[in-house]
């Protein structure tokens, strides 16, 4: 982490989806709004890895998709080197796409089955004008393939000839070939076999460290996030409920939801408590009043049911959006 101005500053980001409720008659059903991301703010420093964790449906992937402009933002701003990217047109954003890249979850779906590896990797090089001649393009592809641990000879092959782990390496090569400054990894290893996860995770970490890339690592897997992140942000129903340096959050969670998440990690150790049942998260289409977490929270009091807590700075780079954060920290101390 550095003290320089953050590479990315996200301020009150909102991404809402409108959809139609099921119709009860001939006329279309009423319009409803799903607040997938509802006021997310965070900073990301140069070379920093911020892990975003949360249950499925909490909006963590939508944050990533909004920042790469795959989904239009409803409001808020995302300053990349001080310049808001959310308002940019597709054409104006194109040069920035080179710097802001995304690793996708499913390595089977993220590669076009009709294109060879060479064709897939040549595309970003050509679009961003990173090599002039065919030989230069090919040399760059070879270098990148070696970097991600693949034999350059594989470039003539099609995606279906590779395993999941190899495909994800190709996906990572497509990202690294343009030398990005910000990489958004959306469940980058979740679809892989557990035995392969560690390899690919280490590769991502090495590449990140070597090139000083900033990274948003989105995952539901706390173990994976713990391995790779410098800081962790916990999301619940479209909002960040807690942000803290990695060590702090795993030692002393300052939000009851984080606590619940940590307690839910299955452990193979005799005599420990059985796995905690998280219960069903509330629906983002009709969130509860007050603190969205109160129906599941063991500490919920009247204020939680009526007033939504805003993130409170707790010092040491921590913040928590909980009325009882102080109590939690005191308890753990």
């Amino acid at each position, binding site marked *: 982490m550095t003290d320089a101005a953050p590479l990315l500053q996200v301020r009150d980001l909102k991404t809402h989806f409108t959809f139609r409720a099921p119709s009860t008659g001939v006329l279309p059903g009423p319009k409803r709004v799903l607040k997938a991301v509802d006021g997310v703010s965070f900073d990301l420093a140069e070379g920093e890895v911020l892990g975003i964790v949360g249950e499925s449906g909490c909006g963590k992937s939508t944050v990533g998709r909004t920042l790469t402009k795959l989904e239009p933002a409803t409001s808020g701003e995302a300053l990349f080197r001080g310049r808001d990217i959310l308002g940019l047109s597709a054409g104006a954003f194109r040069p920035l796409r080179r710097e802001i890249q995304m690793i996708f979850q499913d390595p089977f*779906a993220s*590669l076009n089955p009709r294109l060879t590896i060479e064709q897939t990797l040549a*595309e970003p090089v050509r679009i961003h004008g990173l090599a002039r001649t065919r030989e230069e393009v090919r040399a760059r592809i070879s270098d990148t393939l070696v970097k991600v641990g693949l034999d350059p000879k594989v470039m003539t092959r099609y995606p279906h000839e590779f395993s999941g782990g190899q495909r994800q390496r190709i996906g990572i090569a497509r990202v690294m070939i343009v030398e990005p400054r910000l990489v958004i990894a959306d469940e980058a290893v979740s679809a892989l076999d557990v035995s392969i996860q560690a390899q690919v995770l280490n590769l991502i970490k090495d590449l990140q460290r070597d090139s000083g890339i900033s990274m948003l690592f989105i995952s539901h897997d706390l173990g994976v996030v713990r391995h790779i992140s410098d800081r962790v942000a916990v999301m619940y129903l479209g909002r960040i409920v807690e942000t803290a340096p990695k060590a702090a959050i795993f030692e002393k969670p300052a939000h009851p939801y984080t606590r619940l998440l940590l307690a839910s990690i299955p452990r193979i150790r005799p005599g420990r408590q059985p796995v905690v049942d998280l219960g069903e998260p509330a629906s983002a289409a009709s969130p509860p009043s007050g603190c969205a977490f109160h129906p599941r929270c063991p500490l919920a009091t009247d204020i939680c049911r009526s007033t939504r807590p805003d993130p409170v700075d707790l010092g040491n780079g921590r913040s928590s959006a909980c009325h009882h954060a102080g109590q939690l920290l005191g308890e753990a101390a």
Partner: protein
Amino acid sequence: MTAILTMGRIFRGRWLATAGLCWLILVALAAIFAPLVAPYDPLEFDPLVRLSPPSQEHLFGTDHFGRDSFSRSLYGARMAIVIGFGSVVVALVAGGLAGMISAYFTRLGHVIMRIVDVLMAFPALLLALVLMTLLERSVVNTVIVIGIVYATTTARILFGMTLKLKGEVFVDAATCSGAGHASILFRHILPNLVSPLLVQASFIFAFAQLQAAALDFLGLGLPPEVPSWGNMLSESRIYVTRASWLLLFPGALIILSVFSMNLVGDALRDSIDPRFRNDIKGV
């Protein structure tokens, strides 16, 4: 050289498809060299030998004007190929573009696909009839009309497939790489549509023959003097009890060509989709 190797790869182990290809090559050669091979002028009347059965002089017999059926069949191959490929090109280009663009730009697509829906509300033959009555009888117009008729189904099929492909993760990945709309449509989505397009092409090629024959039969297709297999069928229908060979030969030619096109289309599809490349077995 690479073309020969590619052909070898496509047809290896597929004797039926190879036979179909040979037949289509034969038809193509007949079409090209018709003036050299044909023993008679296809338009020449010879009243003395009208409705004579197949013989050494007239391999396929003669029709009610005494025209040599074999020579007419050779020239008919030209029409079959022109109608077949012409309709395929018109249908795939018009229908394919309409379907892909409709699925990709959904607002515009609502308008285009409703027009397609209206066209599809007509039975294929009726639509062709309506369009042909507005136009002059000519080869080009017949090709355009049949092409438009099948463009509607092509547009429908490609609309659905493009809609599905548009949501694929690799399209998102291409967007993140900086690819524009045209690049995504034609570089990323179109190659994934080749298989359905080929299947569609062989189907259109086949049905275009039948559609053209039906139009000929109703007097709205190719000009009557043009020797086509469809015209030959319709002209000789009233002689079916006296001169069945007049129906037998053009009918057999249509069936064989349609069947062959389907076989070749299947072989092409299996080879172009890399997922099938290693398991081509049987026919």
